[in-house]
Every structure is written in C-alpha cells, then in structure tokens.
C-alpha cells in the first residue's frame, strides 16, 4: 500500500474493521482482566500489603510491567511501527507545569486506592467476578469524575 493510502486509512471505516476493532479491544481487555485477577492485583489484601511494604509482589508486578512496556515503546518508536489502522504510533507527552494536578489528584486517587483496594481496572474486574456491590463503587467513582468536571475551571492544574 502506498504511504498516502496508509495515511488516509480511516479508522473503522468498514463494518468488518469495526467488528475486528471491537473484538480486538474486548479480547485485550479480557486478557488484562484475567491477568489482574490471577496475579491478585485486584485483591484489597495485596494492596494493603503493598502500602505496608510487607511484600515485593505488587512492586515486582509493577516494575516488570513498566519495564516490558518501556522496552516495547522503545522498539515501536525505533522501528517507526504503525498500528493496524495504518497510522504511525505516537504517544503524546503530558504537560507538566508545576504539576499541581498530579500531586493533588494523585494523592486523592491514592487515598481512594488504599480504601477500596482497587484502582479503576479492578473495579470492572470485580464486576465480572460477581461482586455486585462494586457497582456502588463504580457509580461513586463516576460521580467523583463528574464533580471534578464541574469544579475543573476553579482547580489548580499546572
């Protein structure tokens, strides 16, 4: 295929490619959820263990995940890889400024993470496990995001 055709590749333009996209993301999500469950990363007990620095398990999990991801990003960039959709793989940088949003938002999330023993991913995973009360946690999280959206113009970010 010529470069211009690749550049103009329309994401999800045909029903088949849309179905393929749907199945692809569904499968990767299922894979991610499966690994999170079997590695116990979704366990409130494991998160407590992590914040108490009483085991290497969660740290090993995160470090190796970051390591593999970092290596992959390096390879993808070096080879000028393109996605199946045809576009060049590009990761936009995050604006830093003074970092207020990362300090404050990060701390707020961390507090929630210790209390629920779950970050966003595990919340959806628990649903699949049958922990129906997690619907309340998800609903509360959505409300939290909603309030943030409302307060956003008044909050320090950068």
């Amino acid at each position, binding site marked *: 295929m010529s470069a211009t055709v690749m550049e103009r590749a329309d994401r999800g333009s045909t029903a088949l490619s849309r179905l393929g996209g749907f199945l692809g993301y*569904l499968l*990767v*999500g299922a*894979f*991610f*959820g499966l*690994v999170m469950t079997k*590695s*116990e990363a*979704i366990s*409130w*007990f494991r998160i407590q263990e992590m*914040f*108490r620095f*009483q*085991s290497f*398990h969660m740290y090993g*999990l995160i*470090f*190796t*995940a970051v390591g*593999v*991801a*970092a290596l*992959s*990003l390096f390879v993808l960039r070096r080879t000028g890889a393109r*996605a*199946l959709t045809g576009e060049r793989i590009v*990761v936009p940088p*995050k604006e*830093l400024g003074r970092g207020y*949003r*990362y300090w*404050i938002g990060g701390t707020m*999330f*961390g*507090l*929630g*993470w210790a*209390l*629920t023993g779950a*970050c*966003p*991913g595990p919340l*959806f*995973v*628990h649903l*699949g*496990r049958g922990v129906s009360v997690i619907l*309340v*946690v*998800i609903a*509360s*999280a*959505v409300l939290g*995001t*909603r*309030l943030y*959206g409302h307060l*956003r113009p008044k909050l320090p970010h950068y």
Partner: protein
Amino acid sequence: MVEFLSRPWPWYVAGPLIGLTVPILLLLGNRMLGISSNFRHLCAAVSPGRSEFFRYDWKRVGGWNLVFALGLVLGGYLGGVVLASPDPVAISAATVADLQALGVEDFSGLVPSDVFSWAGLFSLKGFVMLVLGGFLVGFGTAYAGGCTSGHAISGLADLQPASLIAVVGFFIGGLIGTFVVLPLIF
C-alpha cells in the same frame, strides 16, 4: 491444566503480560493503555451537563476503551470464576497480623467480605471505603489525568515526569489511607 492455571500467578509472569498490553493496544489502534478515562466517557455518555470536560465525541474517543472495560469484566469472570483459586491470598504474616489488629476477620477471599457486600455498605467502614473511596478514585484519577495503568505503567514506561509525580502522589495518598484513615474507621 485448569488446576494449574487456577493457582495464583507469580509477579514475574503477570507483570510482563500486563506490560505487553501497552504495545498490543498501540499496535491495534495507536491507543494508550489508561482505564480511568472510562469514568469520563461514562459521564460524557450519560450526563455531560454543562461541563466542557464532558463535551466531546465519546464514541470516537472512548468507544474502544469502554469495550476494553467490558473485556475487563469478562476477564474477571474468566479469572475469578472459571479459573478461581480456592485458596486465600498468600499475603505476608505481617500483613495478616496488622489487618487482624485493625479488625479484619475474614481473609478467605480477594477482598474482606464483611466490607465488600451490600450489608457491609451500611457500616461506617463500608461506606467510607466503598462510597468515599470510590468517589476519591473517580475524582482523583480525573484530576490527575490517569490511574495506575495510565500513569504508573504507560506514563512511566514513556518516561513522563508528570507520571512520576502522579505515582508519588498515589503513594502519599495510599499511605495516608492505610495508616491514618483505615485505623480511624475500622
């Protein structure tokens, strides 16, 4: 085979697999792993209100991620029901002792059953942990622009200073939660 896969997976197997999700999503459609934005997409889809933050084409920007989240639910079923481990989580004895001192009694599941239940929701600790905790997860990740997957994994892998700050924040918050708030409410 099922019995073998049902045993808990070690971090050196699971970690790399989680890490691989990053290039897989990039190759699939130039998508960056980051689950917290799903809360934003759900707001945009259900109730955007007047906030500019929720006024975007959530189907185009976030459709893939909502499908990914649906996948997470399936993965939870696969890993937590089909391949469920019958044994309790093998956390350290020190953690068990600490949590027992806190008041946790049931260590048999992945989460403490007296809190993570509809009945538990109506206790002080259940309400604080589930409702307030959930609220903080939603507000905090939206404010910080990412969660563990978005900042700790994707962001750090991309060597983003912003993500390093976010992760430090995660830990400060987590320590406050663990050593200050939990003892107060349990």
